[in-house]
């Protein structure tokens, strides 16, 4: 790297030039996520002698799980999860290929979350190479990489109803992870919301793991998933309630104890006095499986809504490459569709394609092979955008009372739709009559709504409310869900302790100029002492500057 001083002038001492933090560890290929896609990518690259680092955030610290990060765990972590060694053992057992990866010379780091990817490119050019921010339970640190493959998986769309803040209301994927990766799901009888293949697959896996699926609830008038998956659950006792939504989750000292379902008509409106009550200790939110794109979007990869890939996903080329050529996406975060959810081989193929592409990008020639054939998603059988909006319409908009959409910041559906300032301001009036000021075609901008209402600004980083808010805004504006822009993601994409972040090393030069804003004495000279003409040559420098 050279600084801007080649013209004979020194770089601005108050700028970042020359102050990049020291980075002690580096890797050729970083793979984030050790699911089927990530492991396949790591192995495919390691096979060609590339230096690979494979990180996975599991086991997630219990405290983080309690904050509903990275999934909506709903407080259903079994007591056994407090034993970190036992949990690590469970995670290793559930990922048999991890041993193979280690044997292949891959640097495997478990319990390590990636909270940011920082590509060196225009506007963030001061870094020395591309850098990833990592954190384990104790500390945050930086890792330089040349290529990165993101296999960050999925999370669950949240859905508000009376009582959804109770322990036991949780994401379907969260339940799956707890049961199958951690062997520590504290639930015996669950009701599953949603009947897509993704939901039904998880329902069956949980049933196999000993959790009784008492019922499947679908707002539409028919189940949307595959018959064989549905029948497998029905044959083991699950009842199907179509044209139903949750009226209320009822709780006792241990969280959810029962659920009351309400029948809805074709417009999602409740049919009077038609309720069903079921006992359960978990309510699984399976209305939509969401590709976990936060790391990709926050690092600047172009993202678009693709029905065939299950929602907002990075724009990808045939080699799984995003708009930033050294960043790839594979597995669920690159797209979720039924066949892929049913057979891990498809995710693994994506991993191999990206792994091989990364090897080529690193300069090692590999002959083309059938393994490079691109993975193409199936044509979607359903309009998933409309499906998500229909769920929010039936469950939230037509609920008998105003629902709390953002649990962290306590913002309700009505408050979002009327852009009411947060309650702590004590500003009584609705401000929604000026919706036009925040609307530009086709509808309200989710980022603007977020800033005004604070919905999605809380400690769970919007994981439980993001998709609901967008669906609600689409309903309010009468536009299609996929026509609205995506609210931006920000690093750190995992909540990170201030003192962990503070532990990142600095170079000595970083200590200078913190009090000077842009380091210009002339900017802060009081106006009654300001000089007349200004030239760069005559500017004052080397005097103490305090900004205000």
């Amino acid at each position: 790297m050279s600084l801007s001083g080649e013209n004979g002038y020194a770089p601005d001492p108050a700028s970042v030039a020359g102050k990049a933090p020291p980075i002690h560890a580096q890797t050729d290929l970083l793979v984030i996520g050790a699911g089927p896609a990530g492991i396949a990518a790591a192995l495919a690259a390691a096979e060609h002698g590339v230096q690979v680092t494979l990180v996975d955030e599991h086991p997630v610290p219990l405290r983080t799980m309690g904050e509903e990060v990275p999934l909506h765990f709903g407080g259903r972590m079994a007591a056994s999860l407090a034993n970190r060694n036992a949990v690590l053992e469970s995670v290793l057992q559930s990922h048999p290929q991890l041993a193979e990866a280690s044997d292949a010379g891959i640097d495997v780091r478990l319990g390590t979350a990636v909270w940011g990817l920082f590509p060196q490119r225009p506007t963030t050019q001061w870094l020395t190479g591309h850098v990833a921010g990592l954190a384990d339970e104790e500390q945050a640190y930086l890792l330089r990489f040349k290529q990165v493959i993101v296999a960050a998986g999925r999370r669950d769309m949240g859905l508000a109803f009376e009582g959804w803040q109770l322990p036991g209301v949780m994401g379907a994927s969260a339940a799956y992870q707890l049961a199958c990766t951690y062997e520590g799901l504290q639930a015996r009888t669950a009701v599953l919301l949603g009947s897509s293949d993704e939901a039904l697959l998880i329902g069956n896996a949980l049933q196999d793991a000993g959790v009784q699926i008492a019922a499947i609830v679908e707002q539409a008038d028919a189940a949307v998933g595959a018959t064989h998956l549905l029948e497998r659950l029905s044959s083991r006792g699950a009842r199907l309630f179509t044209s139903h939504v949750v009226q209320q989750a009822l709780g006792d000292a241990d969280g959810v104890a029962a659920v009351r379902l309400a029948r809805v008509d074709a417009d999602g409106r409740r049919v009077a006095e038609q309720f069903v009550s079921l006992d359960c200790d978990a309510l699984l939110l399976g209305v939509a499986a969401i590709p976990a794109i936060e790391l990709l979007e926050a690092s600047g990869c172009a993202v678009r809504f693709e029905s065939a890939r299950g929602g907002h996903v990075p724009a990808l080329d045939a080699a799984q490459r995003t708009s930033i050529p050294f960043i790839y996406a594979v597995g669920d975060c690159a797209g979720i569709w039924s066949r892929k959810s049913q057979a891990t081989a498809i995710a693994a193929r994506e991993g191999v394609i990206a792994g091989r592409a990364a090897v080529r990008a690193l300069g090692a020639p590999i002959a083309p092979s059938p393994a490079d054939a691109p993975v193409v998603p199936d044509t979607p059988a359903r309009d998933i955008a409309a499906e998500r909006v229909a769920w929010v319409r039936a469950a939230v908009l037509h609920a008998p009372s105003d629902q709390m959409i953002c649990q962290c910041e306590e913002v309700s559906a009505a408050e979002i739709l009327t852009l009411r300032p947060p309650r702590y301001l004590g500003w009584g009036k609705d401000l929604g009559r000026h919706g036009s000021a925040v609307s530009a075609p086709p509808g309200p901008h989710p980022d603007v709504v977020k800033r005004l209402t604070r919905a999605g600004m809380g400690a769970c980083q919007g994981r439980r409310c993001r998709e609901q808010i967008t669906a609600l805004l689409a309903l309010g504006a009468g536009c299609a869900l996929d026509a609205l822009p995506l609210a931006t993601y920000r690093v750190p994409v995992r909540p990170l302790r201030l003192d962990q972040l503070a532990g990142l090393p600095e170079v000595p030069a970083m200590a200078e100029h913190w009090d000077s804003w842009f380091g210009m004495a002339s900017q802060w000279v009081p106006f009654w002492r300001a000089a007349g003409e200004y030239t760069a040559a005559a500017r004052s420098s080397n005097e103490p500057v305090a900004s205000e």
Partner: protein
Amino acid sequence: MRQGADTGAAVIVIGGGVTGLSAAWWLAREGIDVLVLEAGVIGWGASGRNGGGCSHHHSPLFLEEQRLWPQLDALLGYPTEFQPNRIRIALDERQFQLYRRALENGEHQGFRSEVLDAKQIRELVPYAPEAPYGGYFYHFGGHANPHRTVQAYAWALQDHGARLLQHTAVVDIRLQAGRATHVCTNAGEFACDQLVIAAGAATAPLAARIGVHVPLASARAEMIVTEPLAPMRIGGVDGNGLYGRQTLRGNLAYGGGPHEWVEYEDSQRIRAHSTVLQGSIARRLCQLFPKVAHARVIRSWAGFIENTPDGRPILERLSDPQNVTIATLSSVGFGLSPASGRAIRDLVLEGTCRFADLSTVRLARFAHLEADWQARQGWLPVSA
């Protein structure tokens, strides 16, 4: 060329940031027909990417800034989250000396400040260190919520009948007989009697279209935000090289440290991203508030900021074309916006500012600026 949705307005303001929106609001309050053209979404530039401070005692607009903020919610009819007063904590002698200037500048203009010792700081700021070097309680200034304020201006100006068009990018300005007569956009052409260019970094290329050279450079800066913490009695606390505040909700929102110079074109095509600088911000925030070092950082942000060569604003009604007013606040615009908007109102309607001496923020001071001033000041992007 196609005409805009409406044929035009008495005053067109290019730029839906705080400066342009405030100017439009001040004009609309008097029944002036105003149209604001925003290329993207309002407040998407530096107006929505700052610490929310309202304490600019070095500025000729300071007195008006101080007079207006306490009544701004009532004037606008919408909340800005303004909170008065500011505490600044020094962790060493050098910082203590630097932060004294605010006291002196305030005093010069009739505002009171107190020097705080460690005990007083501990009492006022529960998250402060056990033994800070010292600090100041400035009985002026304060902080507000930038996003809420941007929206408040936008709503308020529409309440007064002014219009706002977002996603309306200006591609040209047409001149006729020494006046700017038409603004050409991607949504058609709009006629105007008076034109205000308050478009952040885009002010330079727009001014160039009418033959006016406005020297500007763009840089990227960063801030971090924690989860909400129990609110301190006074949220306007900063120091140790940081600027920022505890929001009314309780989040700590702080920024500071070195900036990165960027190419204007890059800043227009790439969203501002935060980087590993957040570690250095977190380090200083931990020193400032060691008692909440366990708090979780839940997001960060970055923004592009435009600067003039000397860092001082340009706020001027031009002589040629004589119906154009140029406004850039040079990286210190949010807090001053109630006053800068009013100053622009005066310039547009009366040709001069009635309440402040703007002689130090005129474009003419750059008459002999070197062509290579950016290189001389080292204000160039880091090359790979």
